[in-house]
């Protein structure tokens, strides 16, 4: 579980360009925490030169390859999120393609030297999607990820997202992947979160109809098959004990809140303890984005839902 990232020793070490310090933190983390930590610091500014130098000194350093790759992929996302006025030349496609190619080439070399590094294969799922390399290549990379680390949840989230349909496609493959992966996961894992996340993303895929996000998502979630599947996923998973515990609890808390199932939501909030309420950044330990932010102001939405659930339970 991540404390607020800016106070994290990894954040400090990357900011200070202290590579042995970075490695000390990352090498001590479990595989899934390691991938999540790498992603959490990948957005720090001006680290490309630093990481390139690290890789030049030791081209076989898979951690540096993964972090540099993720950093470049983060910049791609940042450029895509930029809003350009319509009268300015839109060179975003060229810029992002160039960054994606550089990320991919860093990751190709990293994967050759470290074929069993799940952080690299997870990043290569993202770059395959961005470069439009097709479902067969994405599937191959996912197989390589599974061979390196079965049940690697951060990469499974990337695989899930790459199965999201474009315009007019079918969501069924994504839901099927979420269901199957969650069912195959070891007990105590947070893999059920895939099912909830797929439904939330599906429900919000076309949100602008003059309704609030909360209303749109609620209307989607209350459909009987969706509700049943979320309920089943929560029951089957139990309460995760390790990586992704808070993210899992929040995703399901949100679903149950919108479904009006206060007792179930209250159980989720209960398991979170009090720290979650104080530190909203900590809610996102799956690296999948804070789900409450999808409804509006994350702190406010979370606080209100928690109040309602726990207040109602009392």
């Amino acid at each position, binding site marked *: 579980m991540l404390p607020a990232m800016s106070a994290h020793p990894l954040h400090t070490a990357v900011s200070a360009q202290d590579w042995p310090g970075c490695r000390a933190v990352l090498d001590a983390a479990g595989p899934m925490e390691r991938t999540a930590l790498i992603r959490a610091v990948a957005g720090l500014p001006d680290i490309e030169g630093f990481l390139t130098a690290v890789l030049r000194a030791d081209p076989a350093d898979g951690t540096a390859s993964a972090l540099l790759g993720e950093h470049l992929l983060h910049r791609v996302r940042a450029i895509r999120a930029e809003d350009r006025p319509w009268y300015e030349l839109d060179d975003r496609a060229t810029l992002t393609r160039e960054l994606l190619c550089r990320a991919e*080439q860093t990751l190709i070399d990293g994967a*050759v*030297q470290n074929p069993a590094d799940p952080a690299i294969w997870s990043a290569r799922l993202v770059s395959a999607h961005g470069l439009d*390399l097709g479902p*067969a*290549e994405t599937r*191959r*990379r996912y197989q390589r990820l599974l061979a390196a680390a079965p049940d690697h949840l951060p990469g499974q989230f990337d695989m899930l997202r790459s199965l999201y349909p474009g315009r007019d496609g079918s969501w069924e493959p994504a839901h099927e992947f979420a269901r199957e992966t969650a069912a195959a996961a070891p007990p105590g894992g947070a893999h059920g979160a895939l099912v909830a996340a797929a439904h939330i993303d599906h429900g919000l895929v076309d949100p*602008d109809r003059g309704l609030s996000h909360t209303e749109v998502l609620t209307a989607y979630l209350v459909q009987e098959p969706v509700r049943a599947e979320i309920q089943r996923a929560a029951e089957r998973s139990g309460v995760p004990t390790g990586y992704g515990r808070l993210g899992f609890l929040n995703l399901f808390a949100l679903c149950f809140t919108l479904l009006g199932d206060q007792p179930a939501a209250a159980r989720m909030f209960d398991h979170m303890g009090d720290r979650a309420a104080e530190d909203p950044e900590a809610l996102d330990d799956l690296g999948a984005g804070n789900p409450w932010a999808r409804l509006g102001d994350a702190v406010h939405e979370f606080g209100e839902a928690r109040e309602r659930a726990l207040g109602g339970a009392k």
Partner: protein
Amino acid sequence: MINRSEIGGIPVLHTPTTGPLHAGLVFRVGQVDEPLARRGVTHLIEHLALHSFGAADHHYNAATGAEFTWFHMRGTEAEVVAFLNGVCAALRNLPEQRLAAEKEILRTEGNSRDTGPGEALALWRHGAESYGSVAYPEWGLADLTIDDLRSWTARYFNRQNAALWIAGAGVPAGLDLDLPDGDRQPVPPVSSALPVRPAWFPGGADLVAWDTVVPRGAPALVFAGVLERVLFRSLRQEGGLSYTVRADVSARADGTAVITALADSLPEKQGAVLGAFVDVLAAMRLGVIDEADVAAVVKNRADEITGAGSLPGEVFNLLTGQRVRTTAEEIQAELRAVGRDDVVAVAAVAVAEGLLMTPGRTRADWAGYAEAPAGSDAAVDGRVHAALGYRPDGATLTVAADGVTLTRGDDLATVRFDSCAAVLAWPDGARRLIGHDGIQVHAEPTLFADGPAVTAAIDTAVDPGARVTMPAREPESIPVPQRRPGLLTRVRWAYIRNRRLTWAVLNGLGAVALGVFGCYAIGSVLFGDETWNVLGGGFFAVLISAAWLGSVRRRFRELMRD
């Protein structure tokens, strides 16, 4: 053990073996020597030389390769002597009466021949000359005369340009190999159509292929074997993506070796086959090579070496001035001396010089490969002939004193007359120019303004030696300008191309119209004498129009994003 001797000035390599005699007469001439407009001349001569042997059940065969042409025979001493002396006699005096018939046979053979990935790789790497000309049809057949053939045999099928190998009890008596005197012909310089390497180009949907050029020798041989093993493991055993996975080496006369690797694919798996292939090449480039793979390949290759098996290869070496190895042990020792470091060194060069053929619509820029040029950088400066009729791509043909350029949209194809490998000339006036870089300009005089002037300008400027006469075309296969389609059709096409944009624009117009109507209604209440009911309706219309415009704006944004 290989013994060297000579028969009438022709060098002979002999290996003692038991069983029937096996011999091969080899000439240092092949497709790479042929100018594009004379493609097929060597092959035609090879056929004429064999004509007299007919369909008798002799075990002979002959072939025209890229650098060498050879005549092989297996049989008794007398049969071998009769065959080789007969070939020499036919080469000295080509059977002129067979010319037309053999041309027809070769045309049929060329028609049924499949071109493989090797030809495409050669074309993109070398263009339309030297090692790239193997990729082209035998265009020379139509215009070749017996005199052309005689001057070709005088130059290439002579005593100084030939060598013989024999595997058998001994060199048979009675071989006189009577050939005219001449000169040893060096291989032409290797041409390149790839300004940047490593590079990629798009190929067929069901195959990933790759080739490279490295210094020849045992390390290159071992590297190719290692590459094949790693590709096989990754693509077939682990990934289950390919059925055929292969890597071959062929030595070249200039001291290099070409390594070609390929992996087949189902169309729906092409992305994964390419991805896995690229990963294997990256492993080779970075020297991530297993010692055990090197050892296994060295052992296999060394075990394959047998006494007589390498004879033809050594004759090739002899004819191109490379070192001739005389014992199997010598070759085996070279192989066994190859270590992992040697393979790593070759691998780095190999990947850096590589050319990748990607399947279908996939690309390889993301993996660090440059796009091989499929067009020209510059146009010639001359008279512009506009396309006749309806051409949505707005094609133009520019003819200058130094060359021609076909422009289609942003794509340029330029062939300069001083680097024109061949011009195909149809009797109806159509011309196709093929530049040394492999870029083609096809000029149909019926499709461009003042087309006959284009034909005339090309015919005066191009070297007559580069001209290839093509057979007359059926009148219906000569293209005519496309009639401009009716307004309705063009509107429908434009709508199909921009369906979403059209709807957004129509929606926007509707919303604006509704807004204007609303404002007019409000105005006519405030400044005119309409009743208050109309005011309410007006406000309502403005409101709806605003919401409508909002959704249109969002739709436009989505359109821009896509």
